[in-house]
């Protein structure tokens, strides 16, 4: 189980309307990793995420999950995806905490099927894990931002996925809730879940993750967060330079 590649990004390039968004990216995320996927806004990290999720196809290179090319994957329930909060749901959508977590189980039960006892147990366990079982019958928009984000973690946990991918999960959440949220992720990682967290906020996640990939069109850095922080001042200089050059165009 350990040290099995979970996500393999192999020489991937992607252009959109003639703009190179990603250039020759290669990454290998192993089982048990807790990776921060970082980079400036517009640097291509969301695009890379969408390529990994199979929502976009690369122009060059290929992406594999669990050792299989994306187009051969039948069982997508091994992956739990938590989209950005802003794109999660319409604020007025009438849905309870429980109903959202059932969605995490929906693909697993199969088309035309109904939830059975084991499904309900998994949903209940997932809600207990994020300490929200007492809130199960609340409407999602009655919860705070931090609680809502934990609901979506529970939804991903209900599918019993090995890999959690989170896109900017703490945007708009107060700092105490953020701390609790990262504690939960660390706990899940310690229990063996592979986690990929996409964020633009280096200071928030650099001391949480075990590996860090910095993407700005190319893979600028890939390694431990400690090394990255050491190099960070250099990076800032480099960025200032490139801004200066850009002004001429």
């Amino acid at each position, binding site marked *: 189980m350990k040290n099995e590649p979970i996500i393999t990004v192999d020489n991937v390039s992607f252009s959109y309307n003639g703009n190179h968004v990603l250039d020759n990216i290669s990454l290998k995320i192993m089982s048990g990793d807790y990776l921060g996927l970082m980079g400036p806004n517009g640097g291509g990290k969301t695009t890379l995420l969408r390529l990994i*999720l*199979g*929502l976009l196809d690369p122009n060059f290179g290929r992406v594999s999950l669990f050792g299989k090319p994306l187009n051969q994957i*039948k*069982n*997508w*329930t091994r*992956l739990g*995806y938590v*989209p950005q909060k802003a*794109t*999660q*749901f*319409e604020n*007025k*959508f*009438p*849905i*309870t905490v*429980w*109903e*959202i977590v*059932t*969605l*995490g189980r*929906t*693909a697993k*039960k199969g*088309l*035309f099927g109904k*939830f059975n006892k084991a499904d309900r147990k998994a949903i209940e366990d997932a809600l207990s894990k994020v300490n929200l079982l007492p809130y199960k*019958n609340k*409407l999602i928009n009655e919860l705070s931002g931090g609680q809502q984000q934990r609901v979506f973690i529970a939804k991903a946990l209900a*599918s019993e996925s090995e890999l959690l991918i989170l896109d900017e999960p703490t945007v708009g959440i107060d700092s105490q809730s953020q701390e609790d949220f990262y504690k939960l992720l660390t706990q899940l990682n310690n229990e063996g879940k592979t986690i990929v967290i996409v964020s633009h906020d280096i200071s928030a996640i650099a001391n949480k993750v075990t590996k860090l990939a910095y993407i700005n069109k190319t893979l600028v850095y890939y390694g431990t967060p400690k090394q990255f922080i050491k190099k960070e001042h250099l990076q800032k200089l480099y960025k200032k330079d490139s801004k200066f050059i850009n002004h001429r165009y």
Partner: protein
Amino acid sequence: MLEIFQYSFMIRAFIAGTVIGIIAPLIGSFLVTRGYALMADSLSHIALAGIAIGLLAGIYPIYTAILVSVISAVIIEYLRTRRRISGDIALAMFLYGGLATAIILISLARGFNVGLFSYLFGSITTVRSVDLWVIGSLGLATIVVVYFLYDELLYISFNEEAARVSGIPVNALNTVLVVLTAITVSLSMRIVGLLLIGALMVIPVVAAMQVAKSFITTLLYSVAFGLVSVILGLFVSYYLNLAAGGTIVAISLGLFGISAVIGLKKHA
């Protein structure tokens, strides 16, 4: 027995109305919550072209309406998912295209205006046994499909992209949903009329959303509101000699008003 039930046409209207009062808000729940409320309205204008074709060709118009609206619904959905054009533009193009086709066909064959009017505004006195069979069987089929695909339909309404990532066949389910919408629209025109069917798919759902505490209760309340609107509407229209379609929609708006007040009080 009430006088109203001495007329077999009223009994047929109540049977057809009950089915429509259930399926219109049932399908509407999955459309309204995903911001797709105008789908029903566009498809009803397209169905009008189907009616005109049926009247012109001497085919039972509900069949042609179902055929034309189902095919159009599938094309609209295809265009939307391929992102060739945005969803609302696709809806608008088909709405006006359907209406234009209908108007051309009507002008080609002067003389069936009366028949056409009964589809535009609904005409409960003209519900025939064959209508009951079509409405009953397709209505039942719609309920069965929603029952078995409930969780998946909820998922794609809630977050299409997350559903896609989890491996749910989103495109196929979206197609199922728009086909069910097209069928519901076509079946409902005898009772509420094409111009108002969108209202019966939307207003009971919005009314339910004011007071419901979950998605499943939204769905059940909306069906209850739809049924009350149709049944009460048929009674009122019969005794006050009003047009049934308008009366039904006016009652559903009244129910919305009541539930909005209750909803506001709850949140205050």
